[in-house]
């Protein structure tokens, strides 16, 4: 009889999980490699004061330096003097990690249910606005200080989750009851979210004291409090409490998938909708429910963007939702993997700024790297081929046994 732990190990070593991790890591390296070549070559077309002269060409960009800035810059240059753990760059990295965990979970939940939610961005946008507006208005009736913090933050997150969830439910309903392809509707709803929020903003909630399209600021006590003593205080716009909440949510979603009836039904629907229907799952309701949950997570991402980063909602929300797709894909839609992938993309975001200030290489490079990683993750066969090249003698297991596939009868 195997122990629970043995089984856990078994599962981890099982081809699917283990291979996913290997492939994700390999994809990262491959993307970094291709990106490095790209940087070096494009340096040949740029002009600079000091470059590397090779065969009559001057190469201005040093890929090593770019990656140094990208990976170590994101941590605040730990190898240079005067480094402190709670530095601003690391705070930015972790801030993005936190937001990307929410966004990545949002995409992963839908993905696991067999739905490609490209609309996390839109859900985040509307959710964030709901949070900001709710908190600004509620602050008028709720006492300030500690009470305000305790009441307003959960209220704000709830508002974001609720409105994001409702917004996510729209493509869910359209998919379930009108058979409208969710990839298209969610892409469209992203555009609609931008239009609708700006309209609502200028109609009612625009900060009268500002020229920027944005809401009034939420009171300071309604921003996610930082943990005293440990650090990341001041205006670093990052709170360990938020990260802890994100991690807790991540574990919660993993638990939901693995241990609950709902999670089981969701995964079944995602893998084999026919089997799910056979097993008594109402596929329409599941579609709506999973899109709603996905949207709620997107809305929470928006809520934290408001409550932790800006203290208000601003028009032109950055593309956290789209990055969430990359995060989820890299994580193989595994909630626990989302944490690691979110950190990587957090590094990218913060490192991109280091690249911007520390090198002459355009930071648009990061967008390319993200795309490359997704591309490589999408082609596991590529790495399997390489793997086979190094282990040619491997005897493949019989992978599949589909004795009769229905056609052959003995009538």
């Amino acid at each position: 009889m195997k122990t629970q732990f043995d089984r856990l190990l078994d599962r981890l070593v099982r081809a699917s999980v283990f291979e996913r991790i290997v492939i994700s890591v390999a994809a990262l390296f491959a993307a970094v490699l291709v990106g490095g070549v790209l940087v070096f070559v494009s340096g040949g077309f740029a002009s600079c004061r000091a470059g590397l002269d090779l065969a009559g060409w001057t190469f201005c960009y040093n890929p090593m330096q770019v990656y140094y800035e990208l990976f170590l810059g994101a941590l605040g240059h730990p190898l240079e003097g005067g480094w402190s753990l709670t530095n601003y760059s690391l705070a930015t990295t972790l801030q993005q990690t936190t937001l990307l965990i929410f966004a990545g979970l949002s995409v992963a939940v839908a993905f696991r249910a067999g739905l490609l939610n490209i609309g996390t961005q839109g859900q985040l946008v509307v959710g964030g606005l709901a949070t900001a507006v709710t908190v600004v208005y509620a602050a008028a009736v709720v006492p300030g200080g500690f009470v305000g913090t305790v009441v307003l933050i959960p209220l704000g997150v709830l508002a974001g989750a609720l409105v994001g969830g409702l917004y996510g439910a729209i493509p869910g309903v359209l998919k379930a009851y009108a058979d409208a392809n969710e990839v298209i509707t969610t892409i469209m709803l992203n555009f609609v979210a931008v239009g609708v929020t700006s309209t609502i903003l200028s109609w009612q909630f625009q900060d009268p004291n500002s020229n920027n399209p944005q809401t009034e600021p939420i009171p300071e006590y309604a921003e996610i409090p930082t943990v005293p003593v440990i650090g990341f205080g001041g205006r670093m716009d990052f709170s360990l409490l938020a990260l802890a909440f994100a991690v807790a949510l991540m574990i919660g979603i993993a638990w939901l998938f693995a241990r609950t009836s709902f999670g089981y039904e969701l995964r079944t629907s995602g893998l084999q909708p026919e089997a799910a229907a056979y097993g008594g799952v109402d596929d329409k309701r599941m579609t709506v429910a999973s899109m709603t949950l996905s949207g709620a997570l997107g809305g929470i991402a928006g809520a934290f963007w408001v409550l932790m980063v800006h203290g208000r909602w601003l028009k032109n929300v950055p593309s956290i939702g789209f990055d969430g797709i990359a995060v989820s894909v890299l994580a193989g839609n595994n909630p626990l993997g989302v944490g690691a992938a979110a950190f990587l993309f957090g590094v990218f975001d913060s490192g991109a700024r280091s690249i911007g200030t520390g090198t002459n290489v355009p930071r648009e490079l990061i967008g390319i790297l993200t795309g490359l990683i997704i591309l490589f993750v999408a082609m596991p066969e590529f790495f399997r081929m390489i793997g086979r090249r190094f282990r040619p003698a491997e005897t493949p297991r019989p992978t599949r046994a589909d004795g009769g596939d229905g056609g052959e009868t003995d009538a």
Partner: protein
Amino acid sequence: MSEPGAGTTDGTGPTATAGSTAAAGESTGSDLAVHLDGITKRFPGVVANDGVDLRVERGTVHALLGENGAGKTTLMNVLYGLYEPEEGRVVVDGEERAFDSPQDAIDAGIGMIHQHFMLVDPMTVAENIALGNEPTKWFGMAVDRERIDREIRDLCDRYGFEVDPGATVEDVSVGVQQRVEILKALFRGADVLILDEPTAVLTPQEVEGLYDVLEELTAQGKTIIFITHKLEEATHAADAITVLRDGESVGTVDPNRTTREELAERMVGREVLLEADSEPVETGEVVLSADGVTVEDARGVEVVSGIDLDVRAGEILGIAGVDGNGQAELVEAITGLETPDEGTIAYEGTDITEWSRRRRIENGMAYIPEDRHERGLVMPFDLVENGVLGSQRSPRFANGGRIDWTGVRSHTEEIINTYDVRPPDADADASSFSGGNQQKFIVGREFERDPSLVVATHPTRGVDIGSTEFIHDRLLELRREGVAILLVSSNLDEVQALSDRLAVIYEGEFIDVTDPADVTEEEIGLLMAGQRPGQEAAGSPNAGDRR
């Protein structure tokens, strides 16, 4: 056993037009259209063909006989250039060939009609026939559709086919689809036609029609290789029979000089008996009753038209019918996967027409689905996870929305033990089990629900003989325990042997409900083809005397 078929036999042979294609083959002495010599083909973990020899004479029908998985299809795929064999030679018309692709085989005059038709459903008959070989006009700038239509008409005239070239393939019957496949091969100028289990989807009457076609084809000098695992078909239609077992050839025989028993033994390797005991059992209350159930498909076509049925406790009601006559939809309406457009369904006296699928499961309705890959199992899940499919919210395995995985695991292990699922590894993915073992697991899961009704659709399809017997035994055991059983199958032997009462479904209606003991297989066959008792079977006068 390596002696090739001892000469041609029943006179339909290479008389009239054989000479037209014989020239190239003269060198080998006898006139072989196809000679496969020592073919070995391996798949990961299986040797599908192991040094198989096959000699097919021109202008004959040559049957390839063997059980599921014997390697028949694989051998023909090698001949058709789909697979490259590890060992052996392919000789066509006396010339050794190495086919890299089906195109090479087509060029060498070989045509294949696959077990699963290779037709593009939304395209028309003519488009399918010409696919890949479209004659063009205006320097290749356009498909010459007039020419295609003309050539198809010519072929139809020559071989006596009736097909509408403009019809969309998904709209025509299976029999017509098969004609389309044959026309497709002929259109490419095939001289050798491979038919992989061509009768599996046909009614007995359609089968007769096919025999006529084969006769016409050989009369015009074509050579036919005919795959089947049905003895009577091989003996009836073929001029020579090669038997495959476990990937090896166990010899070629002349159907006139052998007995069915001998063939069966060669094929299976032991004596075969398919007689389930089915002594009558006391029946009880009506468990399931359907009243005027009508189901429309997505296009609004009635596929089930006002069906009434009753199943009592301790009784097996068999439903026989050619696939696609509404049995799938009827079962879905009963099991809650589809809502009937009209009529009611009652279960243990309660109207359950509006009940959800889950509620039906929870109330003791077990269901062995037709399609185990799509419905019955979640392929990427392991058996433990599959063990709870359908019970994921039942109080037995879940409390407060949490699944008790320890309980599920022990339940799964119990199923594995009781139903002899091999290998007995609860942590292996469902996809890694062979078809028979997958089916045993589903059967186990459904039977262990403590059901009062079992709906079993094609429960032994694609399953080997041992497992088939086991599943039949379990069904009869449940029946003895007083469970009501609705058995849907297109396998006549099976429904006849197991059912207490038998209904035949044709175009969404029950043609007849009889005592299976009172009817012959031929009579059922007629019913399945839509012939009401007493009516004359149009177009196939000799339908009764096949044996």
